[in-house]
Structure formats: C-alpha cells, structure tokens
C-alpha cells in the first residue's frame, strides 16, 4: 500500500489516494477509541486522530507497507504527550474536568464517583509507567493481535508476550502506588 499526493501546490491539499481513504475508513473509529482510552475525552481523542491523519497526509513514513502500525504508534505517542502536558498544565482542576467529562452515564451517584476515581487511578498509573508499556497495554486491550502490536511499536512479534507480561507487572505496581 502506498500513498501519493498531487505535486502541484495549488491542488496539494486534495487527497486523491485510495490508500489514504481506505486507511481512514478502516482505522478512524478504532484509533479514536484507543486515544479515548488514554484521554477520556472524545473531542481531544478525535482532534489527535485527525492530527495523525493530517500528519500521514503531509509526511507519510518511508515504510508504506505498515501504515496502520505507524498510525497507532504516532497517535498513541501524541496521546501520551497530551496526557503529560495536561497533567502539568491543569493539575487537580484538570483531573476534575476529566471526571466531569466522563461522568455522562446516569446512575447511582456514588457508583459514578467510584468509577471516575478508578479511571483516574488507571490513567495515573499509565502516565508513570514506561510509554511503551502503556502503549502495549492499551493496544492489546483494544483487541489488536500481537502482529499488529509489533507493527505499531516496531518490535518483534515474538517479544510481544514478554513485553506485555512485563507491562502488566509494571502497571500493577504503579496502580498500587498512585494516589488519587
């Protein structure tokens, strides 16, 4: 699969590649869901997903055979950066905003608060573990196969099981340490 762009500056913004179109159709929703897992905010998840496709359009990677993997690697890197930036920028107030954003489902108020605190704790743990560990956990949890994860994170498919097992240990230790 490869991407092409029109070379004329006047028409450069038009996407004409069927490969690009197919990638967008295939990955939009799943990419947004993965980003949502990190961010807990649809607006931000969709914005970063769009950013990733814009980046793909303007600067496609050299290896045009593994564009799907590239999408998830770049998008999850963006999400981790956004999480760090958000944490530093907003502190406690930001966390409160996220709690409010995600508390959209009606139900027992106590249960809603409990769920929100759990999400906050899980995200806090994901922020402190190694970025690759956070990526591998979320990508596997989203249903990706080992081959897909390997392509996304540029690792050997044979090492995915080992890295997943390590990431889970790392996550559990961080989960028990973080304070919310």
């Amino acid at each position, binding site marked *: 699969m490869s991407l092409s762009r029109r070379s004329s500056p006047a028409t450069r*913004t038009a996407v004409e590649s069927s490969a690009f179109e197919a990638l967008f159709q295939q990955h939009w929703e799943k990419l947004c869901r993965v980003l949502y897992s990190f961010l807990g905010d649809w607006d931000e998840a969709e914005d970063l997903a769009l950013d990733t496709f814009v980046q793909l359009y303007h*600067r496609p990677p050299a290896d045009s055979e593994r564009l799907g993997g590239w999408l998830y690697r770049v998008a999850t890197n963006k999400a981790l950066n956004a999480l760090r930036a958000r944490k530093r920028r907003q502190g406690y107030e930001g966390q409160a905003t996220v709690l409010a954003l995600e508390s959209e489902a009606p139900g027992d108020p106590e249960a809603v608060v409990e769920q929100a605190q759990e999400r906050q704790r899980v995200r806090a743990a994901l922020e402190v573990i190694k970025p690759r560990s956070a990526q591998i956990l979320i990508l596997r949890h989203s249903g990706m196969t080992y081959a897909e994860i390997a392509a996304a994170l540029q690792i050997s498919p044979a090492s995915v099981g080992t890295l997943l097992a390590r990431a889970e240990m790392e996550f559990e230790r961080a989960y028990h340490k973080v304070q919310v």
Partner: protein
Amino acid sequence: MHLSPGEIRAYHDSQLEAGAQRRVEAHLAECQKCQIDAQSALDHTRQVGERLASLEPSISKPISIPAARAYLDARLQAEKEPIPMWSKLTSRISRPAWVGLALVAVLAISLVFPPVQAIANSFLKLFRVEQVTVVPVDTERLAGEMRQSTRLEGLFSESVQFEEGGEPLEVSSVEEAAAQTGVAVRLPTAFVETPKLFVQPGGSVTFNIDLELMQAVLQEMGREDIQLPASLDGAVVKLEVPAGVAALYGECQVDDNQMQDPDGPHRMDIPDCTSFVQLPSPSVDAPPDLNVTQMGEIYLQVLGMTPEEAASFASNVDWTSTFVIPVPRYGSDYQEVRVDGVNGTLIQHFQYGEQAYLLVWVKDGIVYALSGPGQADQALQIAASLK
C-alpha cells in the same frame, strides 16, 4: 525447562503459532510449577484487564466516519503544512551546525523587534546566555501570519547580516576539537561507538533596525497591535556565536548536498542521528539603554501572546541572560529537568512521525544541546554519562 512469562502470556492470548500452542499445552499438562505460574499470570492479566476496561467509553462513540472525513477535508484544505521561518533560515546550514545556528536564527527573530532606546553603533551592554527557558508558540498561526508578509524576506535580507565563519570541519580527535575551539570538550560515555566530531566555526549576526520596514511587515502580518517605539530606528544589535563542537552518533547527515529543502517534499526516511553540541554562550551587544523587558514583551507578542500574557511572562524572565526557545504549542511537550548539576530544558517533539528530544542546558558558560530520536529518559541517560 519451564515456560517463560512471555510464552504463557502469548499462550493465553492464543497468539502462538499452532505448533507452539500445542507444545505449551502439552508442557502445562505435565509441569505443575508452570500450571501454577500460568494460573497466577492469568489472574494477573484478568485483573489488569478489568482495570483497563474502566477506560472504555460507556455509551458514547466518536463522530461518524463521513463527519470525520469532512473535518479532515476541511483541515487539509485550510492548512498548508507550515514551514517555520527558522527552518527556512537554517535550511542551508548543514546538520552539525543546526543547533548552534538555530540559536542564531531564533535569537535573530527575537532581536528584529527590540525597542532599543537608540544609540546606534554603541555596544556597551553585553548579554550572555546563562540559562534557557521555553515559550509555547502556535507555530501554525505564526507561520500563517509570516506568509502574509511579502516584505519579511526583504526585512531579513536588508536588515540582517550573517557572517559565518565557514563550513563545519571534521576533526579526528577531542584534543583537536578542543584546540580549535578552546572548549574543554566533553562526550557522553553512553555510546559504544566513536562519534564523528565537527568543529563549527563561530559567526555573528548584525541587525540594522529599519523601523519603517519592520512596521510594514508587522502590518502585513496583521499585528498592528504591536507598537514599536520610534527610538528603535537605526539601532544596531550584534549577536556573536563562538565556535563550537558537534559530536554525531548514528546515521547523521553532514553533506550540504543532502540537506532537505524546506519548501520541497519531506524526506521519507527516518534518520537515526543523535547529536551533542557544545559551544561557549553566545553574546549580544546592544545599546546601553536597551529596555530588555519591553523587548521581550514585543518578542512574545510577535510569537502570539496577548499583551497581558507577554507582560506577565516577560516579568518573570531575566532577559539579559536567558535564551527563550519558542516551541510549538501543539505536538510538543517540554519540562524543566535537572541535568549535569544544573537546570535544563527538555523538549519532546515529533520528527518525521517519531518521538524525538532536544535537551538544552548551560553550565559554566557553555551551552550544551543534545538532540536525537527517542524518549526523554534516553536523553537524560545520555546526558548523565557525560565525562
């Protein structure tokens, strides 16, 4: 021979090849220790899975594909990939000199707008870079504003004189680099490979301020809100950058002919190049009654801050000794870190779709800049290995 945690995990996920899956199953049927390990791993995986499940959206989902496609089209139609002005300015400069001369380019932009109280040709006030700080900039907006100006390039070509000391020169040893630059060259021991060493001769940038031209450019950029004092006209400010040393590890470009044209297509391969640059602090000569805080405020306004934001930020910066690096507000992240016994600035960003870092700090009058592909912890590990 017992099963590894990785094998057990892949077995539970049914991600082994058929033969390997059967072998693990057969082993588990016979090995009690592995049965216990596998059960424990399965419990652990389920527990982590339950925690991660809390992050899944409950009732909502992203906007539909057609709606998202419309947003994407609008974004692609609206924006041409922005090319930061400093990329253009440094496009003809080979990679070893990039960091040092990016300092020049960025400072050049900052110094185009100093509200100097005007005593031309008087260089009594000396600034020296002693520390680094970061200001987030909406680069897309700034690039858009700069594109609106037809006279910006004229401003640079007429008002700014670059005096470069020549091309980077490869040297064969640390001692040779030290002898040519006067820098006590330090290298990270984190790399097993021997770096390529280059000496970048020093250079200077002189600004002859033409107030009328600057005001015309600001007007074209839609920034009539920025007021330049009349006394600025005719002032001369000179920035001097001493010779420095660049150590390159990995696949680095050093040939001018291979340099990327920022107006051309983006390069497709991802360079695996880590560079470590060290040079004595650049200095600025300017008229003695330069109002540095006011100069800083104007610089920050040009970069996109409101007057209030600029005043607040500028009042917390010692402009006589601080190098303010503009970093893109979106797509990059920065933090203050402890490095080499001093405070430094670590910028993480994307380069060709991959994570990359730039770590800058100043110690004992030397500016250090480490840049390469990878994560923040790699930068800090490399910096910690400096000898």
